[in-house]
């Protein structure tokens, strides 16, 4: 029998308790056990960044973290970025406005990574943003729409 643990995580503000195999990644746990399929598994070896979620507010690759390591922690996934009333975050709005996505598969990881980055770096340069997302691969957009979206969202948030 597979080794399992019961874990409790706060996901997007809601406490969730479930059984996880000790070998299950946080990403698989979120997708398969909790049904939060917004987080995407792109490479499962920690390079592409599609699976990025926020763990206690910090961007983390959910393919490189075990579900049991998240026990007791606070997780934010792409499903948790919009407001309680469904209002898009400034970053989500900017992605929409600047054509920051095409197929949408890398988008959850881009949004979570940049959410944390812009919180800590409210006034980045274009070069800063490009470095910030250099751990997230996008095959569709050539990154330009994403960079434009991040810079515009930063401006919007600065202006409050």
């Amino acid at each position, binding site marked *: 029998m597979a080794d399992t643990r019961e874990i409790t995580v706060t996901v997007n503000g809601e406490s969730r308790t479930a059984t996880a195999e000790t070998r299950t990644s946080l990403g698989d746990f979120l997708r398969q056990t909790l049904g939060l399929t917004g987080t995407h598994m792109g490479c499962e070896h920690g390079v592409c960044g599609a699976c990025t979620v926020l763990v206690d507010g910090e961007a983390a690759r959910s393919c490189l973290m075990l579900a049991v390591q998240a026990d007791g922690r606070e997780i934010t996934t792409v499903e948790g970025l919009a407001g309680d009333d469904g209002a898009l975050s400034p970053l989500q709005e900017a992605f929409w406005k600047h054509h920051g996505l*095409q*197929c949408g598969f890398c988008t959850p990881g881009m949004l979570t990574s940049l959410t944390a980055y812009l919180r800590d770096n409210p006034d980045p340069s*274009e070069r800063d943003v490009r470095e910030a997302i250099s751990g997230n691969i996008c095959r*569709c957009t050539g*990154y330009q729409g994403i960079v434009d979206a991040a810079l515009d969202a930063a401006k919007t948030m600065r202006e409050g």
Partner: protein
Amino acid sequence: MVVRYLGAEVQRMEDPRLITGNGRYVDDIKLDGMLHAAFLRSPHAHAKMRSIDTSRAAALDGVHRVFTHADLGPKYSHRMNQLYPAPVIEQNKTQYPLAKDEVCYVGEGIAVVVADSRAIAEDAVALIDVDYETLPAVVDIMTALEDGAPLAHADTSSNLMGRMRSQFGDIEDAFAKADHVFSASFMQHRGGCHSMETRGCIGRDDPWGDGLTLWTSAQSPYLIRRALSRWLDEPEERIRVVAPDVGGGFGPKAGFYPEEIVIPLLARFMERPVKWIEDRREHFMSTTTQRDQHWALEVACTNEGKILGLRGKVTHENGAFVPYGILLPNSSLTPLPGAYSIAAIDVGVDIVFTNTVPNSPVRGAGRPCGIYAVERMVQVVSRNLGIDPATVRRRNYVRPEQMPYETGATLRGGAKCVYDSGDYEALLDKALELADYDGFAARQAAARAEGRYLGIGVSSCIEDTGMGPYEGTTVRVEASGKVAVRTGAASQGQGHHTMIAMIVAENLGVAPEDILFESADTSKFPHGVGTIGSRVAANVGPSAFDAASKVREKALKLAAEVLEASEADLDIEDGVVRVNGAPDVSITLGELAVQLSPASAMRVPAGFDPLLEATSYDGSSGSPIACGSNVAEVEVDIGTGEVRVLRYSVAHDCGVMINPKVVHGQIVGGVVHGIGNALFERMIYDDQGQPLTTNYGEYLLPLASEMPRVDVTHMETPSPLNSLGVKGAGEGGTIPAAAAIVAAIENALADFDVEIDYYPVDPQMLTELIDAGAAEAAE
């Protein structure tokens, strides 16, 4: 008043779902009772299998069954069909869905485990015992046709898959009267798919209900339905193929894979839905790629650089099997002579088998290779004659007054390749202006004074887009007033929903938000062709336009009767038909739809067919030819060989732009894909056919930190070949990019007389060329 959407930068209808985590990709679909599959794949490039023992795997807790070729049974024991039969295919090698007794590439599927979870299925795969007798593998295309070369298949006597040739004009005469003949040979390497979503599918079989359903991450669901129907010998009507949200395609998802047979069969055998999701390592080994193509060319030209003829030979790597016919080698030849008026061409291609994953088109298919070859030869002429590369191009372009210009080449469907419209020199001027080409010499000199090496490279291309036969659309107003729009064309991120909604909304007089869009589900629309070759806008665009026009006509005719008004006095705005000058006299489209879909015992008005609906298959009468010129400015670190792209300028013409924002995204994304081809993406096999680059540490994709901002400007020369004047835009960024980058690198390193005969250009290769050039200069 007509609300204009065409040409507006409408924000995509797709995005609200995708930015909130509510997309529905194949791995997001969960069905009751669903089981999970994992494949055992060949670890050898070429081997016979003496025996397979699945008993240990089958005994593992949580495993339901293990299948090999033999376990599929005699009814399902045949090889896959050829999707694109062609007379030039001399050896039509297609694979078995699960290998029978011979494996011909690392990654070929041998057995499959069905288990309660993917993790258990993977555990069990490791417990399958195969007794292999390894065989010599052929990997190098340059020696694959020599006597004594290892053979890719045990039952053949040659690695030649077939030969093709593109030949027109009087080539002997062209070379006889040339002032100069120059030659060059070079290897082109293009990488793989690397959509951020891997492949994956779910099969469900319900023989007494819905029949066989396959959800698959694919570009051509109808092609898959037909292929599956033929392979199973079962009617298409009982097979439903759905491409849900697809996380990128780029060509390799446009075909038909063994897993798309095996997974539905497993669902049939297990009487439960079965899911398989490719992992990234599998993607490297078993998703088709493009890879090597060697060109050896001679160019005949005048003293002024006017090119008279081009001849030579291409050696094309095919991989182990032929899943796609000759799409790739064919589309490598058809772009010749590029944007230029070259009277005579004679280029042949040898298509050779290797023990590597089968080849398929990747963004642009063979077009990036064909265009690279032409552009390299223009570069060779420029270099040898000492004429500015932009000037050589000006002296050779097909000119607007020559349009329609028949090149002499033949497209895959047998039609002549005809350049329908465009002003290639004007496009070059726009690109040069955007790049501040005239100011480059000063920038280069200033940098050189600081010990930095800058270079500039120019490249032009044409692209045959919008291939037929059609991609239909149905538009139907329902009783609620909402408008159902259905088409076969699958989207992998190109924004079809938005584009089609804009066309229908403008033409019908409704808001784009009122359009309920469905596509890529074979149960929702009778036939579609596929999202390949930048063909959707030029085919679905016109059909959506035409279907919406027909619905509009029908609505106005009916409204005229109901409102007792003249049709000429009616207009439709926001879903309401009103009489001009009498705004209170009106009827909604929904109410009109009810008149044509009444309850029992009621009548459809005389002279009208049921339903406020129309279907159209209007498309393009030929391939609209898009075109572009790119200018790359790079800096090369002569110590490390690192290349940085400082500036990248694109002038592109895809005819009338339906949504400029979407077009812009396609161009920029395409350019970055092309820069990846030029500088980073390299799928390496060792001489035994072992793939050496099977993760993103080893295989490099372009990252935001390495990519420049891409400046794009457009010309809009309407294509005369369709009602909207559109041409395709999906690949025009990629096609010319490698040639511009390589030319820029050579320009930066002119002091070292560096000539590049291979891409991707990596730092090691460059430092060796720089060192060799420096040593020669010192002698």
